[in-house]
């Protein structure tokens, strides 16, 4: 048994591919997930646990009526490949839904939604 474990662990170690590859989970966001903020933020920024593939990653922000309130094109800032950012129109008080879908650099897709609120 011990020999088997050593052999398998060795095979894993030898065959291991670069450590920057895995599913990309949302690590944190600004405005924070489920938070209330006093004023309209100029952008929504999402930080992920892995680097993203820009061509297949996006985010939208909608109001309670389902109307988009973002400026249209999400961007991955230069030098921050694990970050996704989208500009916002000036927002009025209310609850807003952030919907994201990303593909990590190993082709694994993930997606998610969360809300934030702008206080009256």
């Amino acid at each position, binding site marked *: *048994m011990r020999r*088997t*474990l050593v052999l*398998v*662990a060795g095979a*894993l170690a030898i*065959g*291991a*591919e*670069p*450590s*920057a*590859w*895995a*599913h990309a*989970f*949302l690590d*944190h*966001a600004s405005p*924070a*997930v*489920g*938070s209330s903020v006093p004023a309209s933020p100029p952008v929504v920024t999402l930080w992920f*646990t*892995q*680097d993203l*593939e820009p*061509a*297949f990653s996006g985010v939208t922000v909608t109001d309670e009526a389902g109307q988009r309130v973002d400026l249209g094109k999400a961007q991955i800032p230069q030098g921050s490949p694990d970050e996704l950012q989208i500009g916002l129109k000036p927002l009025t008080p209310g609850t807003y839904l952030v919907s994201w879908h990303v*593909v990590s*650099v*190993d*082709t*694994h*897709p*993930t*997606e*998610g*939604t*969360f*809300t934030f609120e702008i206080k009256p």
Partner: protein
Amino acid sequence: MFRSYTDARARFALAAALTALPAGSPLAHGFAGQRFFPATILTDDPFVADEMSLPQVTVNPPGPDGSRETDIQIDLSKRITPDIGVTIRDQWQRLKPTGLPAVTGLGALQTGAQYQLFVNGPHEALGLVGLNATWAHTGRVQALGAPDFTTLSPTFDFGKGLGDLPRSLPYLRPFAITGNLGFDFPTKVESAGLPNPNTFNYGFAFEYSFPYLQCCVKDIGLRAPFNRLIPLVEVAFTTPINRVSASQTVGTIQPGVIWAGPYFQIGAEAILPATRLTGHGYGGVVQFHVYLDDLFPHSIGRPISEWW
């Protein structure tokens, strides 16, 4: 390697791979929409996967006769296609009967074939059907009680996250349940003068996902390692449906926690006997479980149908 992957040829390959993905593909381990289901320890997972438990160490509660059993198990799941998978499992056992010397050896080899029935992202639901086989004469039959007969076990496994609850119930949304319903059909009605009953097997895992709470409900400020914890309680029972009394139900209740990282997860659970026939006292299990699809995304972590 990351930089080289951004060249034009790699982008074309990536685009082709993404285009070729079937709708609702689970894409290895347990994703349904924004819900991540960890691999549970006691109950089978409701998704095909490229994963391996290496090892799982179980110290069982004392049996009704006071015997003690310790198991070291290896478990491999491999996708053949995005929706079809196979599993193989074996374990080394140490059995210490009361007043007798301990015996050791391999338990019975178990294999399985699985088909992913559905993945519903918006409702965070998964369904899988499988046929498992526990093979005769693949373990130490006389010394350890490994079977001298093959058992066939059809199963239905499911998972459901509660993320589709109204957002007015925020702290219920991280809950999820997975479960198994299945039967064991031994191919031999008795062994050594004792009956081998057909059995009904049912088990459930009740999970509360801190990763889900953080990513999709409310960031309460949890940071590593607590933001990747999934507390859970697993229960599983086996009830005879013929040849012996149904009162001979055995089962365990296993509260514990799983830490799920990007490449592997670690889980630990206490084992509490749920019936007198199961045993008494308590035991424990720990598991180290790796995600082969994340460790080897361009080779053995992909379904075999995508190797060429």
